[in-house]
């Protein structure tokens, strides 16, 4: 099950903890992967670790022209593009009263607009192939909200509405579009928290622990697989029961 041999997957934010795990999972299932991100070094380290079938495709997602060019670069490097995983995201946390236009715009540009541009860029090849998988990494806070994250939560909720609308339009062409909404995941970012902070977070999670990047990657792998062909427009929540939605 979940064999991706012969499929080509583009993963944004592949230099991060979750993106790296997603790339590894898809690669492990036989896919050729295009690793995108802004920091070249970790991308190259990951490509070296994966060996064959891995391509480094640096891209600054706040640059609209660069984002528009990325699907073409991915197709040139890999020979096709069957799976798109929009995983890259940034935060600019700030209480709402103090949130600047810039903090709002940066987050919307990278998290939502670049996702839209990449989805649009892969439509044509996927329509021609009559097969495609779009997986957008949203967040639990897109549904629940979160203080200090008005911009981030808006961008992640926006991704869900966009994903559903795309799913409607192209379902008859063998293309699915789904979202994965992680809860608290243990990454470099959460390692900075102290034990008390970690305990407070874990206390809110029925599973009593943070999730792992591999647990997000497994959800993405499922949605990317041929077996998930009848699943579209859905949001798969992976959050240890923190929000049962």
């Amino acid at each position: 099950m979940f064999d991706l041999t012969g499929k080509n997957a583009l993963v944004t934010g592949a230099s991060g903890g979750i993106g790296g795990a997603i790339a590894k999972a898809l690669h492990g299932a036989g896919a050729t992967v295009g690793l995108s991100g802004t920091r070249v070094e970790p991308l190259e380290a990951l490509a070296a670790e994966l060996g064959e079938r891995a391509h480094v495709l640096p891209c600054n997602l706040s640059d609209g022209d660069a984002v528009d060019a990325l699907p073409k670069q991915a197709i040139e490097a890999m020979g096709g593009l069957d799976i798109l995983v929009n995983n890259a995201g940034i935060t600019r946390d700030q209480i709402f009263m103090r949130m600047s236009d810039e903090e709002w715009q940066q987050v919307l540009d990278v998290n939502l607009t670049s996702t839209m541009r990449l989805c649009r860029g892969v439509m044509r090849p996927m329509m021609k192939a009559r097969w495609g998988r779009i997986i957008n990494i949203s967040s639990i806070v897109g549904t629940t909200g979160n203080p200090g994250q008005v911009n981030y939560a808006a961008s992640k909720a926006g991704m869900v509405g966009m994903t559903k609308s795309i799913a409607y339009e192209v379902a008859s062409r063998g293309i699915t579009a789904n979202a994965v909404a992680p809860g608290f995941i243990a990454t470099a970012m959460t390692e900075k928290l102290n034990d008390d902070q970690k305990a407070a977070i874990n206390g809110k999670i029925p599973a009593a622990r943070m999730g792992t990047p591999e647990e997000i990657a497994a959800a993405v792998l499922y949605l990317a697989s041929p077996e998930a062909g009848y699943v579209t427009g859905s949001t798969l929540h992976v959050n240890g029961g923190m929000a049962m939605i």
Partner: protein
Amino acid sequence: MSDIADRVKKIVVEHLGVEEDKVTESASFIDDLGADSLDTVELVMAFEEEFGIEIPDDAAENIQTFGDAVKFINEAS
């Protein structure tokens, strides 16, 4: 009928699964041949591939009938 018109008709018949005699000069892809908006985008993609041309979005919006398509491609190729 010109060679171009024959090739365009073949694409339309294959893509929309309609009878050849329904594809007349004034036949509208959407109103007469049962295409949806996504079909019209795909038809334009197929024309681009068949004739090695590029059809910009604003021109594509004006290609609504079989006759429109043949006329555009005649002028473009």
